[in-house]
Structures are given as structure tokens and as C-alpha cells.
């Protein structure tokens, strides 16, 4: 029997080299691009950010303007965003820090007390060049203390940091009263070295002082490049690479398509006439489809068997539900008076209810169509093409409906263009899917290329919106646009998030963080310094609290003794909404940042939609519940045994 076992082992080792053998392995099933994307912890949060943004953009006036975005970004950045990212890291490592909220205020108070003049106002009289590093050292000390206490006593961090939380609250109030005899301390403006540090922690960018006439042209170019990158990336990841060498016709066809699209964009930008718009949009559409077909001819395997159309059971059910929802959305929107902004019932006006019902039904329709598409993919290429074509038609009709029915410019122009663009993408997909084979096996080279293109596109998206947000046009100033201020706090938030994403995803420390959160004993077995890793995570959170404390002090000048108390739960909500597991071992730093943006959107979006802002907490609670339930299923899927 021993010999038989060995022979079998050798046989399986020997066969492993051949590619065909690997693909025949029945234990592994291929996951498509979208399926793989949905395994990422932060994807739910990303959808939430975009969905909420679209919703509030549609129902409220200031949301989405430069000024509205400025306050949204600032709210999301500090204290919420920076802390949410740090807390996400700690939670991935399997611990909580309930003292993190109180610590932000404590650090602000500490730096002010250290830097105020000695005398009746009771400071230590240190220069900010000394006070700021000193307060950082103190913050890291608290983190070290928390971490060591949790590690040495083996008590839950929940209890340990709850104690630290109360210690900090008491210390903040006690020392403030003792030293300055008030429940607030200030003013940091009088400290020596203030001017330099104000630039570091509290500079601002006045949008109206920065004009750039070329802004929209640059934005347009960037958006076009991004669209092209995303289309090519997803095509690369979704379609099978050609087996035989590529057809040379593809390259010139691709070039013709690209040139046509560029001409279309230029035409759209130059003319304002209806005929010009139609011509431009038509050129872009034709160019995109031709270009993608060219790409396909060059690189992708043509489709073999398209199969027949079979609309059965579930598929038909979802398809019908999708179509009905879309039609119902349009019928209801058409029937209601768009100008009536009288109160219908709390919290809706007629206008608001119309927009909400329309958005909800449209969202429902889109979801149903996606589900029907999932079923159709399993049936045949032909069936999938039909479902996609129905979707494209619905989206197109929807776009023109929105254009014809809307009163405000933002729907007539912006929403219309976005919806047309989406329609275009779906049409391109119908054509590509009809002509070329979708991939059903793993191809690391294509995946690597696709991922790289998507990352570049992501960076360009940020650049495009930064350009648009930071600069004004001379014409906008003439029209009397409301000024918008961006703060350096957002830069700190972005930088901190980038560092944490790098650390968690790419470094040994990041790997160890996942390990100590997921299975501490296993990690220790293979030589991971578990105690040190956890202590450093606590220090990361307290370091973040220090940063937030500095940002608060330089923004507000005086700090209340209760600043930050109780905010730690919002950080935890942001982390959980961002896909981090409460039990540790799974999550992402980027997710924490996205969770913070969701909370900011709700906080600012609810009052700007003229709802009572008290609803915010109800919203937070419901969001948390939904996020935890969603996370649970993600974890179940990730941990599930294969059959």
C-alpha cells in the first residue's frame, strides 16, 4: 500500500506541470472579474458611498456643489476619517480601543496646556516645537500602555480601554478645571511657534482665489482617458485571450475607433446645438464600440457556440421584475407634479417623494436586471446578449426620460450624460459579449494587466475630481459662485489612509496584523511576535488620536473638555461599514475611510435634503446593522469549506 501511495503522489506531482491538466482540475471553479471584486472587504462600502452620493445629490440642492463637497470632505477627514482608518487597522488585529475618541480631545488639550504661557492662565510655557513632539510621545505612551495591559493581563481590550476611556475623561475635565479653572482650554494662537505649525495643521485652500481657464478641458480629457482605461481593463479581465496569434486587422480598427471617439468628444465640447450634441454622442458611441471590437479582434478569442435563447424560471422572473420596476418608476415620476414642494407627509415634500420613489424603483430595477443577467450568463451567450440588450434599451429610455422630465440643470445635463455613458458601456458590452468568448479559467497575465490599468484609472479619477474641485473658471466667478474652502486636514486624511493601506496590504507588519486578528495562536506558532504587533496597533491608534488632536487644536483654538467623548463608536461603525470584521482578521484600511465618507454623507445629506437631522442616528444604527449582516455572509463565504 505504501508503494501505491507513493506512486499516486508522484503521478500527481508529475502531471502538475501541464497547463491543460490544471484547467481540468474539477476542484477549482473560475470566478469572473465582478465576482472577485465582490470578495474585497471594501466593495460594499464603495457601492454605499456612490449610491448615497447619487441619492443625496438628486434630492438636495447643496449636495454635490463645490461648497457642499468641501464640507463633506472636511467632515469625512478629521476627526472621523483618520480615526476610522486607524481603528480599522486595530480591529483587523482583533482588538478595540474605546479610549480613542476621548484621546483626540485629550491630545488637543495637552498640547494647548503645554504651550500656553506660564502665569495666571496656567500653561507650561513650552515652545510648540517642543510641545508638539512631547504630546506625540505622550500619546504613543498611552497606546503602549493600553497594548501592554491587554497583552499582559489577557483581559478583553474592551474592558481595558473602557477604563482608559474613563481615566481620560476624568483627566481632561479635572486638569482643565485645576489649571485654567474652566471646562475649555485655549488659546493656541498665543503659543510661540504658532505661525509655522498653523501652516502644517490648518492651512486652507480658497477655491475662488484659484482660477484656471483650461480646467474643464483637462477634466474632459482625464475622464475620457479614465473611461477608456476602465473599459480596456475590464475587457482584458473578462474575455479569454486569443489562442492563435492575433488578427492584425484589430489594431487599425482599434485606432479608427479611438480617433472617432476623440472627434466625437471634441464635437460635443465645441457645439451646443442639438444636432451637434447628437452627432457628438453618436460619434463617441460608434467610436467606442468599433474600438472595443478592434481590441477584441486583436486580443480575444472569437465566440464559438452562441446557443439558443431560453428564458426560463428565475431568469424570466427577475427580467420581468426589472422591466416593471423601470416602467413603474417612469410612470409614477411622470404622473407626479415636479414643481410641487409642499409637504406631503413627513419627511417628504411631493417633489422629494417623487425623486425618492423614482430612485428606489430604478435601483430595484437595476438590481433585478443584474440578477437576471447572472442567471442568463449560465444559460447561453445568446440569452445573455438578449438580457443585456434589454438592459441597454431600458437605460437609454431612462436617460431621455430624465432629460425630458427634469426641471433642474443638473438632471438635464449631468445626470443625462452619466446615464447615456452607462448605456453606452452596456451596448459596448452587448457587442463584445456577442463576438468574443468570456474567460472561464485563470489567466494571471491578463489579471495583472487589468488590475494595473484599473489602479491607474483610480488615480486619474482622483486627479480629475481634485482638478475640478480646486479650481474655478472665470465665468463661474462672474456668475457669483459661492466660495468653497478646502483644508489641509483632507491631505492628512488622504496621506494617512495611503500609508495604512500600504502597511496593511504590503508589509510584514500588515500580514502579522491579519494573522494576530485571525488566529493568534497559529501566528505565534510560526514565530509572529503577537504581543509586539498588537501593542504597535494600539500605538497607531493613539498616534492617530494625537494627529486629530493637533488638527482640532489648530482649527478651533480652544478645546472643550468633552471633545471627542463618545465618538469612538462612530469610528467603530465606520470601520464595520467599511467591511472590517468585529472579530478581527478581516478588513481593510481603505474600507474605514469609505465608511467615514458614508457617515459624513448621511450627516450632511440628511439636513441638506431638509429632513430633520435627528434622523442621522437612526440612519447610523440601521447602516451598522446592515453592514454587520453583510459582513457575516462575506465571512461565511470566505471561510466556507469547499463542498
Amino acid at each position, binding site marked *: 500500500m505504501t508503494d501505491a*501511495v*507513493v506512486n499516486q503522489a508522484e503521478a500527481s506531482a508529475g502531471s*502538475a506541470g501541464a497547463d491543460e491538466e490544471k484547467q481540468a482540475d474539477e476542484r477549482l471553479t473560475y470566478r469572473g472579474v465582478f465576482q472577485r471584486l465582490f470578495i474585497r472587504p471594501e466593495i460594499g462600502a464603495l457601492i454605499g458611498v456612490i449610491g448615497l452620493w447619487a441619492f443625496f445629490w438628486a434630492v438636495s440642492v447643496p449636495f454635490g456643489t463645490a461648497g457642499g463637497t468641501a464640507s463633506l470632505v472636511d467632515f469625512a477627514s478629521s476627526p472621523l476619517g483618520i480615526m476610522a482608518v486607524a481603528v480599522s487597522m486595530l480591529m483587523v488585529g482583533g482588538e478595540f480601543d474605546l479610549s480613542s475618541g476621548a484621546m483626540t480631545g485629550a491630545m488637543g488639550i495637552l498640547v494647548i496646556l503645554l504651550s500656553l504661557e506660564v502665569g495666571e492662565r496656567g500653561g507650561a510655557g513650552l515652545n510648540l516645537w517642543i510641545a508638539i513632539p512631547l504630546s506625540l510621545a505622550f500619546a504613543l505612551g498611552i497606546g503602549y500602555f493600553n497594548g501592554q495591559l491587554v497583552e499582559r493581563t489577557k483581559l478583553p481590550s474592551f474592558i481595558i480601554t473602557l477604563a482608559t476611556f474613563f481615566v481620560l475623561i476624568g483627566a481632561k475635565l479635572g486638569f482643565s478645571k485645576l489649571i485654567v479653572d474652566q471646562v475649555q482650554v485655549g488659546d493656541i494662537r498665543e503659543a510661540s511657534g504658532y505661525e509655522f505649525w498653523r501652516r502644517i495643521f490648518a492651512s486652507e485652500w480658497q477655491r475662488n482665489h484659484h482660477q484656471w481657464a483650461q480646467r474643464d478641458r483637462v477634466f474632459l480629457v482625464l475622464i475620457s482617458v479614465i473611461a477608456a482605461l476602465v473599459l480596456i481593463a475590464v475587457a482584458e479581465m473578462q474575455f479569454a485571450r486569443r489562442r492563435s496569434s492575433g488578427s492584425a486587422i484589430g489594431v487599425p480598427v482599434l485606432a479608427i475607433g479611438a480617433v472617432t471617439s476623440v472627434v466625437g468628444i471634441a464635437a460635443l465640447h465645441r457645439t451646443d446645438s442639438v444636432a451637434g450634441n447628437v452627432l457628438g454622442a453618436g460619434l463617441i458611441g460608434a467610436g467606442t464600440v468599433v474600438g472595443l471590437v478592434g481590441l477584441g479582434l486583436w486580443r480575444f478569442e472569437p465566440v464559438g457556440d452562441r446557443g439558443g435563447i431560453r428564458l426560463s424560471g428565475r431568469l424570466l422572473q427577475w427580467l420581468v421584475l426589472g422591466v416593471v420596476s423601470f416602467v413603474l418608476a417612469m410612470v409614477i415620476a411622470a404622473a407626479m407634479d415636479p414643481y410641487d414642494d409642499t409637504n406631503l407627509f413627513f419627511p417628504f415634500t411631493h417633489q422629494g417623494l417623487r425623486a425618492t420613489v423614482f430612485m428606489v424603483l430604478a435601483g430595484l430595477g437595476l438590481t433585478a436586471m443584474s440578477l437576471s443577467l447572472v442567471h442568463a450568463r449560465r444559460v447561453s451567450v445568446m440569452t445573455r446578449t438578449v438580457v443585456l440588450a434589454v438592459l441597454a434599451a431600458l437605460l437609454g429610455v431612462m436617460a431621455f426620460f430624465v432629460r425630458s422630465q427634469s426641471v433642474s440643470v443638473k438632471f438635464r445635463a449631468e445626470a443625462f450624460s452619466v446615464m447615456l455613458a452607462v448605456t453606452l458601456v452596456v451596448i459596448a458590452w452587448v457587442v463584445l459579449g456577442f463576438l468574443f468568448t468570456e474567460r472561464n479559467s485563470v489567466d494571471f497575465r491578463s489579471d495583472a494587466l487589468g488590475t494595473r490599468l484599473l489602479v491607474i484609472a483610480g488615480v486619474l479619477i482622483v486627479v480629475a475630481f481634485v482638478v475640478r474641485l480646486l479650481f474655478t473658471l472665470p465665468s463661474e466667478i462672474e456668475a457669483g459662485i459661492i466660495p468653497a474652502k478646502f483644508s489641509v486636514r483632507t491631505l492628512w486624511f488622504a496621506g494617512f489612509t495611503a500609508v495604512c493601506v500600504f502597511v496593511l496590504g504590503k508589509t510584514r507588519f500588515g500580514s502579522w496584523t491579519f494573522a494576530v486578528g485571525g*488566529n493568534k495562536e*497559529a501566528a505565534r*506558532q510560526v*514565530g509572529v511576535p503577537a504581543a509586539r504587533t498588537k501593542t504597535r496597533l494600539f500605538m497607531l491608534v493613539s498616534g492617530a488620536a494625537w494627529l486629530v488632536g493637533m488638527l482640532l487644536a489648530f482649527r478651533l483654538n480652544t478645546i472643550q473638555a468633552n471633545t471627542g467623548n463618545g465618538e469612538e463608536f462612530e469610528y467603530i461603525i465606520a470601520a464595520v461599514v467599511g467591511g472590517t470584521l468585529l472579530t478581527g482578521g478581516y478588513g481593510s484600511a481603505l474600507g474605514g475611510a469609505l465608511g467615514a465618507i458614508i457617515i459624513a454623507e448621511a450627516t450632511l445629506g440628511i439636513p441638506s435634503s431638509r429632513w430633520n437631522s435627528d434622523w442621522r442616528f437612526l440612519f447610523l444604527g440601521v447602516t451598522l446593522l446592515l453592514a454587520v449582516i453583510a459582513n457575516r455572509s462575506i465571512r461565511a463565504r470566505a*471561510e466556507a469549506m469547499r463542498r
Partner: protein
Amino acid sequence: MADTHLLELDNISKYYGNIVALKDVSTSVNAGEVTCVLGDNGAGKSTFIKILAGAHQQSEGSIRLNGEDVTFANPREALAAGIATVYQDLAMVPLMSVWRNFFLGSEPTRRLGPLKWIDKSKAKRIAKDELMKMGIDIRDTEQPVGTLSGGERQSVAIARAGYFGAKVLILDEPTSALGVKQSGVVLRRIVEARNRGLAVIFITHNPSHAWPVGNRFLILNRGQSMGNFAKEDISLPELTQLMAGGAELEQLQHELEAAIRESSPQS
């Protein structure tokens, strides 16, 4: 025993207060051989592993590695000496990807000035190749270990121990929670590891798993050694008999038969 063995245990005993957990146990293992440690629950198998893995220290007796006396103060020292232990349930972090688990604690890094990051492509490539050598074809090393079957998880842990230079591999009941087919997979990995020149100590309570792969069998019962046999000196039925406590099993058999005889006339 004229020549020196890779790892040799000589009359190991372990007392916890007045409790005798292990008494005068001796065995040995050579490179390219499998020594199976068999015993029922409470036979002292866990104590035996913990002493070898450095988690506990023996009260009496000596451990010789390449003929030299050694004592391990903690698991790290045992690991550094080339003794890797794969525990049944503590082997892996289920939510982490295969390659991260494979390299956990010893990640290969690249460096640019003060920045140091994991060389992901190298780690993935090595993990894939090493697993391939063990006959496990993991197409995407990004998949979480939790999605692997129990047998595959044990296999990944074995491959990892081998790659990081273990000379002696201790496996703690790797097949006990697995089905027949999965157990076969793990047994195949044990043979693979043996063929690559590792000395394997395979702890199990299933003689039919031990028999095909073992070169030497140590049978424990209630902390006592019931014998330390080379494969040619013992047969599978004898092994099973010994493991179950020989005379005790016969006693049990008689009692059961008596019980059946008594109850059958009435029914």
C-alpha cells in the same frame, strides 16, 4: 543502537505534581523515515508532542539531536533547531490567503531606502511551487486558507515546515478530523515529506493510518510505553491489539459477549 539517529529520545518521563503523564518512553527517528506514535485518548501523546515541540520540558530522560543532548526552553528554540510541529487545529489563519499563511512570520521582503515591503510575486511563486512539489495544485494562492479542505490545510502546513528547513516534522493527529479520502491526501503528503529526507513523527490513534506510512511504531498507553517496534517486527493486527491495550480489549470483548448472551433469550 550503534549508529546515531537524527532524533533520539531516551527514557523520557514527565510528572505534573504527583501525576505521571509519561514514564520512561524511548524512541528514535531517522532522516527519511516515519516514526508513528500511537495511543488512545489520555495515553500521553499530547505531553509527548509538547516536550518535543519545546512547550514543556521533560522531568527525566534526555533528547538527543544528531547525538547531542538538547533541551528546548520554548517553541522558538525547537523551531530554530529544525523541529517543526503542525498542530491539528492551530495550523493556519483561515481568513488569510494561502501564500500569506505559507510565509507567515518569515515573509520575503524587498527594500527601497527605509521602505520595506513583502515581495508578493516571489512569495506567491515560491508558495505555488512548493505546494506543487507536494502534489497540491493551488491555482490561485490568493484564495483564503478557509476555503481549502482540512486535508489540504494540513498539507500546506507540512509544505511550509519543509520549506523553512525543518529536519524533523511532528504532526499532531493530522487525520483525526478528516474523512477517508482527505486522510489519504494527508498520508500521501507524509510520504512526500519522508521521501524528501525529512524525519517525520506522526501522532495518531488510528493504526490503519499509521501502518502504511510508518517505519517505526511507538505505542503509548496510560503514559507507559507498550513497545517501540521497527516495522518488520510487528504486524497490523498486533499493532491494533497492542494499541487498544491488549488484555483490556479481550476483557471488554468477554464482558460484551456475556452481556449479549444475557439479554438475548428474553427478546
